[in-house]
């Protein structure tokens, strides 16, 4: 059996990448949920698990934030998404490598996952200044109908480790809510 230990320090690479993204080791070490890299099976993180009360608290904070966020005009909300896209551009190589380490995609495919997030951000920024509604003729006299989109309240979003998909930490960023 020829064992090729190609990258002996995958956990170190993960630490360096996350440090470069401003994520300290306390966020992904010392927890109970062990994450391994399919590349060589080594543990790369032990993520703290969220309790039911943590989730309830997070939902409460999200609801409080939404009450503020819904008053921000759509093009201004789009500006935040534009900046998210810029962050992804700046860190594309690092985040793409993280995808490769976490799910075993080729480097090119890992980068493609990040590019998809960037594309989604661009799309959302454009939409944020093109949120048209409809005015519809009413069947009743002296009436008119209007249909218009507004911001949705927060939605709970699961982080599942799905086979073949992008890193769970990243995947939810694919649908930034410009709305």
């Amino acid at each position, binding site marked *: 059996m020829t064992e090729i230990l190609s990258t002996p320090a995958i956990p170190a690479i993960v630490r360096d990448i996350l440090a470069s993204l401003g994520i300290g080791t306390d966020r992904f070490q010392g927890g109970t949920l062990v994450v391994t890299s399919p*590349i060589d099976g*080594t543990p790369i993180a032990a993520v703290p698990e969220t309790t039911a009360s943590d989730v309830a608290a997070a939902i409460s904070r999200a609801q409080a934030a939404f009450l503020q966020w819904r008053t921000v005009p759509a093009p201004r909300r789009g500006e935040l998404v534009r900046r998210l896209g810029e962050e992804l551009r700046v860190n594309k190589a690092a985040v793409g*490598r993280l995808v490769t380490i976490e799910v*075993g995609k080729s480097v090119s495919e890992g980068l493609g996952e990040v590019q998809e997030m960037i594309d989604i951000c661009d799309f959302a920024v454009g939409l944020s200044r093109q949120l048209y509604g409809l005015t519809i003729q009413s069947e*009743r*006299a002296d009436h008119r109908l209007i249909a*218009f989109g507004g911001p949705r309240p927060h939605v709970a979003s699961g982080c599942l480790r799905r086979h073949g998909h992008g890193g769970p930490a990243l995947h939810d960023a694919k*649908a930034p809510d410009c709305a």
Partner: protein
Amino acid sequence: MGTAGQRCTTLRRLIVHESVYDVLVPKLVSVYESISVGDPLTGDALVGPLIDGAAFEAMQRSLAAAREAGGTVHGGARVDINGKDSFYVRPALVEMPSQVGPVVEETFAPILYVLKYRNLDQAIALHNGVSQGLSSSVFATDMREVERFLSAQGSDCGIANVNMGPSGAEIGGAFGGEKETGGGRESGSDAWKAYMRRQTSAVNYGRGMPLAQGVKFDVDEGSAQV
């Protein structure tokens, strides 16, 4: 074979016309035998590892079931890379006499089942004869065949491509599928509207109070006094 066959849009079934089967399939088998499998961080391998041991077991179960159903399996064995805790495999190409067993199931592994067809209607019937309906594609230069594949009598999937594989969608179009692989659409086209709260408002700028659908619900003053 991209993402070691673990993409939701990975090509699982290849339905080949009988006139080109004997030329195409041996070429494909030789590609499957020679494609680079390896550590994605250290080289330019096109096929990386399976996600874990359970994925490897699932793949081997599907290959065994395919053999039992009369399939001829090329490849599919474990490749010795990076030790016992990682699971690299040679992608498998499986020639199947009919669409049964693992062919109609999702395994999320690098297995391509190859089936033979005689006419397009038969191919489309095979194509649609499974419980999944996310992504599909046709390779053809015959405009009638292409348009038929894209028509109401053609592919029943949420994604139907022409002269390319079924994976690697752009974000500009709506992404999503039908049947067991359904669940709405995301990204472009009009799918993004689901991310917003659509509100319909009826505005009355007159003095009357007419109801929709001509419904009458008038309360006279007499009956209002109890």
